[in-house]
């Protein structure tokens, strides 16, 4: 089968690889119909995540048809159409029982690697480094899905792939970012980053009762989509001083909640932006945290900073003083997708949201390397690429 494989920083190749087989009783094999490129895939692409190996298959946002099930999978049948959550979760450990699926204690066979970097291991993730399990990803024609009795959600035929594909990651991830804020009526939410997760965070903040949502980015086309499709007010951080503008827009209070939907490859103007760039290039800092610092400083006293963007290692100049002295709450986490999939599917079915509004490009799987290139360079007004496989 064809698969999109990682061969080093900004080097991808479509390889012909063997089709996956059942390895464990609770596995299923899915014939993939649609798969997407995630903003977090760019961190792998740009070499920000350690423990990648040449030949690794990328991709963690995929859906398709069940073609084989292990003898331990009783709730799925051949022919079922399913969306597959990106965190692999066993459903039986203490974290899964608490619905903290991305913290599953059993799904990462390479847990010892993650423990060396982070203290404890989170769940395994499809196509996202060996540190997170070394699982083959879903930018391929088929994928093996471990613990298939827990993760995959059957979706109705009446909804086409484009409407339900993003239940795998970015819609729940954006929703959880807003959910972690504990939004109250009248609240103002600011969202850093108008990539796909940022767009869903904006939409979700409104769904959860925000009065106003302000979106921050530097790409006009992304700000335009945030304004037109998600209903946000916008700030272009290359043209306006974010701190001052937010203060001005919120009557001097600052936003009640700030969402970082940027993560570790943020860009920033001025001295701190340059500082991060130099330090990450010299590998003295693993993650550039410009957006996060700004979100912390901009948040109103007693507010919430919710971090949906991916960070993998260590950051500098973390404004702890602001957090302590202004009683800020920091919340974060890889999305517990399994917790959100069904309620969000119901919102789609009720017509409250059509997640396909973020799609700007549809390509064949074979064009994935080109897709990564334009997505990374933000060319051709690229926001979200869906790859069609079968």
């Amino acid at each position: 089968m064809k698969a999109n494989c990682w061969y080093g920083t900004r080097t991808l190749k479509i390889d012909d690889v063997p089709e996956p087989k059942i390895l464990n009783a609770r596995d299923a094999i899915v014939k993939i119909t649609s798969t997407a490129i995630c903003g977090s895939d760019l961190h792998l692409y740009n070499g920000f995540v350690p423990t990648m190996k040449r030949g690794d298959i990328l991709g963690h946002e995929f859906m398709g048809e069940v073609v084989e099930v292990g003898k331990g999978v009783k709730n799925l049948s051949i022919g079922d159409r399913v969306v597959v959550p990106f965190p692999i979760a066993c459903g039986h450990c203490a974290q899964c029982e608490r619905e903290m699926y991305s913290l599953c204690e059993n799904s990462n066979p390479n847990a010892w690697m993650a423990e060396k970097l982070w203290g404890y291991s989170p769940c395994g993730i499809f196509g996202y480094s060996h540190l997170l399990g070394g699982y083959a990803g879903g930018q391929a024609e088929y994928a093996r899905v471990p613990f298939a009795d827990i993760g995959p959600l059957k979706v109705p035929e009446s909804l086409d792939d484009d409407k339900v594909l993003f239940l795998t990651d970015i819609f729940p991830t954006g929703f959880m970012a807003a959910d972690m804020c504990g939004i109250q009526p009248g609240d103002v939410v600011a969202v850093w980053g108008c990539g796909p997760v940022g767009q869903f965070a904006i939409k979700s903040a409104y769904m959860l009762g925000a009065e106003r949502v302000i979106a921050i980015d530097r790409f006009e086309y992304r700000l335009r989509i945030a304004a037109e499709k998600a209903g946000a007010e916008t700030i272009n951080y290359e043209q306006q001083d974010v701190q001052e503008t937010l203060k001005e827009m919120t009557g001097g209070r600052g936003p009640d909640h700030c969402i970082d939907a940027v993560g570790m490859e943020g860009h920033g103007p001025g001295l701190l932006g340059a500082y991060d760039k130099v330090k990450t290039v010299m590998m003295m800092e693993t993650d550039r945290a410009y957006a996060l610092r700004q979100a912390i400083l901009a948040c109103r006293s007693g507010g919430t900073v919710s971090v949906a963007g991916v960070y993998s290692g260590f950051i500098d100049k973390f404004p702890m003083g602001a957090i302590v002295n202004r009683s800020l709450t920091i919340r974060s986490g890889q999305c517990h997708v399994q917790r959100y999939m069904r309620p969000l599917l119901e919102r789609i079915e009720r017509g409250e949201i059509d997640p396909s509004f973020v799609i700007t490009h549809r390509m064949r799987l074979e064009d994935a390397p080109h897709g990564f290139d334009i997505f990374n360079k933000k060319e051709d007004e690229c926001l979200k690429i869906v790859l069609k496989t079968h």
Partner: protein
Amino acid sequence: MKQHNSYGDDWAGLSTGQWIALGAGVAGLALLASSRREPRGRRREALKTPGAVRVERVTTINCPIYEVYDFWKRFENFPKFMRHLVSVESLPNGRSRWRAKGPAGMTVEWEAELLEDRQGEWIAWRSVEGSGIQNSGSVRFSPAPGARGTEVRVQLQYNPPAGSVGRGIAWLFGEEPDQQIHHDLHRFKQLMETGEIPLSDGPSLLRAARPADPETIRNLAGVEE
């Protein structure tokens, strides 16, 4: 296969860039590492026997005590999660015969006896006299607070004899015995909580994360069917 020796070896598979990226965090981790090393050193010092190795590891399993105890009580189950064991066979009078994979295809064997068995609390065993390989182990079960399942505390020790058998047993426990037992206990937890030891396409950094035939994957991961 050399790569089975120690999980630590797998780090050699990192590319230069990845090493540097990880290196950026080393300063932060050094503090953690040094505070961790201390109790281990203390434990070894207390043994007094030169070359003796004693390791202790703990995990919490989200299952009732009796289930965890019952599984552990049957020593034949050990090879399911202890990577280097080939088989454990029950003999009469609480004795058991242990077979382990040694280096270069060598098999190491010894006989063990049950020392103590307190139902749902504690199991202890040791190699019988004259078996050539002196080793002992115990496991303690206690309820985790707040109905969080069962805390399982495993302690193993061995006194490596001189010569090839000694090297065999040292190999059995790996270059980092703590890490080896920790890893085995993680597998035990996986087995108890999920009914299986989940396999990934790229165990450690031994191969790229892409499909292969099940036998290759099982061999690399050291998991029996």
